[in-house]
């Protein structure tokens, strides 16, 4: 899979994006009380590509990720899914947001499983309420997905009875149940110890192998180098450097990237 070349807004042709991008952020600005957390960032992810975003805390990487499913409303700029604007203009309608989020799944750092529902019920809820699947079909799908993430035995267990790694794998299954075209991961292993993180990364590797388009905010450099096709380094709300993961990680060009990577590898 080819890495996405860096591009600026001005060099892009007007109108529709190339169909090569499964997901694209165009000129995204996110402002919090006058501070630009994301400052005019454009980023495209090709179909089947895994794109990792690294960078220090407060660099805007999670904020950028969250604009892809409009969990974070951008101050300006657009999100395109398969070359189509996800929001026509102005304030998105509820229908636009629901349609966007059926195509874009998401996993959170703190899992955010529903604690009052069992693992299977967690995975069934949106299938029934958002897709209108029957309960039987939704349960079949839930069991199949739990099997895929290695947790078939946990179907009727509440999240509180599962380890953090298991909870995150259930959360991945829950997002996959809507058959998304793109999966967003917001530091999926940051709340886990290394062993539990590894089992989550294994599920993500398997997902990448099956050709899922993935956008992953992470501090796992090994995973980024191994699994990602494209690596983005962000600092202070902008993309400082991006390209092939191995070359960015082993031969960073910008001072800011070198400084960050040195801090990571010197630990």
């Amino acid at each position: 899979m080819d890495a996405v070349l860096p591009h600026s807004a001005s060099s892009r042709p007007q109108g529709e994006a190339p169909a090569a991008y499964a997901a694209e952020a165009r000129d995204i600005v996110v402002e919090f009380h006058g501070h630009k957390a994301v400052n005019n960032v454009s980023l495209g992810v090709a179909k089947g590509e895994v794109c990792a975003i690294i960078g220090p805390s407060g660099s805007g990487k999670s904020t950028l990720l969250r604009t892809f499913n409009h969990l974070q409303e951008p101050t300006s700029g657009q999100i395109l899914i398969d070359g189509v604007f996800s929001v026509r203009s102005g304030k998105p309608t509820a229908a636009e947001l629901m349609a966007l989020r059926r195509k874009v799944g998401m996993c959170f750092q703190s899992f955010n499983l529903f604690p009052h529902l069992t693992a299977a019920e967690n995975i069934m809820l949106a299938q029934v309420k958002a897709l209108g699947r029957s309960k039987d079909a939704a349960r079949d799908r839930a069991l199949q997905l739990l099997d895929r993430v290695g947790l078939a035995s946990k179907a009727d267990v509440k999240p509180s009875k599962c380890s953090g790694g298991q909870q995150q794998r259930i959360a991945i299954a829950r997002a996959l149940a809507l058959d998304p075209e793109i999966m967003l991961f917001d530091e999926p292993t940051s709340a886990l110890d290394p062993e539990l993180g590894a089992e989550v990364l294994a599920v993500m590797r398997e997902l990448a192998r099956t050709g899922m388009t993935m956008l992953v905010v992470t501090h796992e450099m090994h995973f980024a180098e191994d699994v990602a096709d494209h690596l983005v380094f962000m600092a202070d709300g902008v993309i400082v450097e991006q390209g092939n993961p191995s070359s960015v990680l082993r031969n960073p060009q910008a001072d800011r990237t070198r400084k960050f990577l040195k801090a990571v590898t010197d630990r």
Partner: protein
Amino acid sequence: MNLPGAFSSIAAGIGTTATLTISSFVFGAIIAIPVALARVSRLPLLRLIGGTYIQITRGVPPIVWLFVIYFGLSQFKIHFSSVNASIVGLSVISAGYIAEIYRAGLNSVPSGQQEAAQALSLSRISSFTNVTAPQALVAVIPLAIAYFIGLLKDSAVASVIGAQDITAMALAASKRSMDGLLIFILAGAVYLIISVPVAAFGRWAGAKIAARWAVRA
């Protein structure tokens, strides 16, 4: 007056006290739903209306509410029996308190739950009924039962406008017997006999629900 006689004359008011408390609590809990939803609405005007309702109902003493409803409204040819006037007044007040309890329950649900529901493409209604509300209930139930006990005691104010509740019966008995100390200690005991089991039930139900739903309580 002997002890059993005093007790039975006071106990005659239990039915009215129970009617006042349970009716006011149920009506209050229903009226509180739109009040609480207005209070947490995204629309500033609705938030203002909800907040104002809560301020006014909680900021005016119950006895003033009952006087306004029982004596005040009769000027406009609106006549309530003393029990009905008390139920109306206490329902209006308890709606203010219970709305704040609902709000506390909604605020107790971590914002990540709402985000996960949104990210899963759930509608606002589904997200509320399937994700937020069941979790809020865990926080609401113990608070609501504590408030119920408070309402049971506050319902004594209805005796002032002539409702024949426990307090009114005790007042009448004390005038007949001239043994106010015994009579009013008994009246207090009757309130305790009702409220202690209710409180115990509240603790049991709260723990039961928290355990059953395995929610971080």
